[in-house]
């Protein structure tokens, strides 16, 4: 299957409108105020679907659908969100378990019918959905297992890839700082068929197996960056989640939280060109910087020494990451010296999105995270490539080359 940029854009808008329709139905019924925050299409490792839900307790409503598109879709509320819903429908309803469940099921039913009907209208085809099932669980357990396989043509058994497309919308209550989510996991073959029929031309199409390989190579790049962190700090660090998302350019800054972050930004040149960010939340930045310092420091605030440690770390993480790419693409990817940033997360990403946004309406965003159990530490790497150049780079990419991203530390230093 090939995906073209036009149809990804259309599908993104469709998922967004579906989510808005669903949210409107809910607002009408409950009098609550909510707005769709982000909608994105993500290609991600099956094991990482719903990673954002982490260990929270969730309830929701799940449907199967079939027809022009097939798969599963689920509406997920955290406990507090479901209580708000139940209370809005029937005052006192949140205290009654059975009542709360039926409120969620009722709202879910109405919301999700709107969501699926929106798709059917656009595709001018019928999509049937099963009756809603009430579901509850911890973290990503609440999500359906997902479709069988991402790409029957390329043969998953050989490539070892198990990645799925996820359409995800995040909806935020305006009065409570609580979010809820709509996940849609379409089966691969019908999705491929629909995308194929809605493609304008073959010109800007990217074969999906290349996108998958690109994801793998990003994972390897992150792993390499993590090894660099480990070498410098002695803290054992693992690459965690890697995903490739597609979203309207104005949603790009929302990939990062509103809290303050510290990190580095570089512009990389070559094919593709773009921006690469290495970001630490403030607490992580202090921990990791102190782990790198020769003398014990126990500063309450972020000092110049902390900053230079982060700058150095950002630099070697960037090199590790970019080398991973360059290896697979067999090109040179140069980058500017890192610029240190210490600011509101979204304000950091916003100028980069604007620069990319001068030439394109949608963007691919590459996100990966690394974590460690030793100390409270988390780092995010985000890359924002020029879309047209990314397509060119993928055109040149030979799929077999992905196995050459094995980290080779000696090559870096």
């Amino acid at each position: 299957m090939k995906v073209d940029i036009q149809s990804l854009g259309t599908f993104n808008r469709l998922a967004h409108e579906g989510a808005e329709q669903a949210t409107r139905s809910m607002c009408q019924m409950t009098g609550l105020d909510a707005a769709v925050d982000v909608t994105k299409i993500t290609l991600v490792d099956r094991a990482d679907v719903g990673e954002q839900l982490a260990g929270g307790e969730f309830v929701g409503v799940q449907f199967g659908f079939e027809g022009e598109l097939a798969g599963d879709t689920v509406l997920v509320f955290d406990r507090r969100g479901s209580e708000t819903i139940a209370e809005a429908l029937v005052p006192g309803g949140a205290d009654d378990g059975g009542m709360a469940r039926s409120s969620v099921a009722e709202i879910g039913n109405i919301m999700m019918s709107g969501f699926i009907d929106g798709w059917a209208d656009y595709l001018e085809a019928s999509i049937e959905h099963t009756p809603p099932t009430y579901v509850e669980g911890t973290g990503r357990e609440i999500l359906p297992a997902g479709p069988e396989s991402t790409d029957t043509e390329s043969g998953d058994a050989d490539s070892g890839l198990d990645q799925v497309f996820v359409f995800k919308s995040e909806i935020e209550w305006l009065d409570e700082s609580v979010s809820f989510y709509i996940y849609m996991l379409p089966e691969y073959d019908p999705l491929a068929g629909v995308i194929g029929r809605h493609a304008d031309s073959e010109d800007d199409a990217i074969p999906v197996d290349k996108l998958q390989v690109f994801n793998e190579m990003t994972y390897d790049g992150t792993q390499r960056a993590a090894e660099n962190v480990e070498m410098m700090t002695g803290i054992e660090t693992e690459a965690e989640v890697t995903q490739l998302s597609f979203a309207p350019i104005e949603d790009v800054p929302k990939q990062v939280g509103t809290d303050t972050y510290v990190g580095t930004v570089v512009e990389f040149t070559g094919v593709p060109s773009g921006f690469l960010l290495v970001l630490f939340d403030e607490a992580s930045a202090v921990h990791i910087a102190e782990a790198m310092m020769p003398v014990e420091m126990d500063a309450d605030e972020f000092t110049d020494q902390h900053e230079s440690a982060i700058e150095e770390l950002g630099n070697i993480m960037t090199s590790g990451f970019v080398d991973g790419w360059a290896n697979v693409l067999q090109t040179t990817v140069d980058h500017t010296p890192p610029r240190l940033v210490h600011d509101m997360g979204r304000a950091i990403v916003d100028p980069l999105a604007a620069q990319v946004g001068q030439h394109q309406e949608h963007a691919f965003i590459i996100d990966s995270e690394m974590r460690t159990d030793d100390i409270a530490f988390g780092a995010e790497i985000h890359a924002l490539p020029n879309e047209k150049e990314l397509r060119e780079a993928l055109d040149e990419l030979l799929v077999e080359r992905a196995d050459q991203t094995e980290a080779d530390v000696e090559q870096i230093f």
Partner: protein
Amino acid sequence: MKVYDGSTAEGASTGEPDRVKVGIAEYRVASGEAVLTTSGLGSCLGVALHDAETETAGLVHAMLPSKDEMESDNDAKFADSGIRELVRELERSGADRARMEAKIAGGSDMLDFSENGSGIGVRNVEVGRRTLEEFDIPVVGEDVGGDHGRSLRLEAHSGTLVVKSANHGSLRL
């Protein structure tokens, strides 16, 4: 477009003013006790308009300078078309452009990698000012440029714009 007046049941019961969030490439209009907020302006420009007589205010969070430079169907994404739309929307809810005053914030130079010409932040501010001049709306307060991000909070009744930044405290305009 929904107009928020701060009088919904939830707002009244908690005693908190209604908070209306304005996302990137969006604009919103509110009146009475409501408060408009937007976060994480880097090179983006926030333009706050206020009509003191009707206690109506509007806020747009624009990402790029001019709609003429590219194809897009979202007016609020650009400083010029975003301001024009916001003025119209305010007038639809009873405000008058002759009474409107503007406050602008954002348009930072942070992380501007462009090598020639002025950066997006600078151009956002320029185009924003020029568009406000078209309507003869005076700019009565501003906090623009620099190399840091900002978050905004606009009170609909007073038109007070509070500008917060991560490392530079907050400022009332």
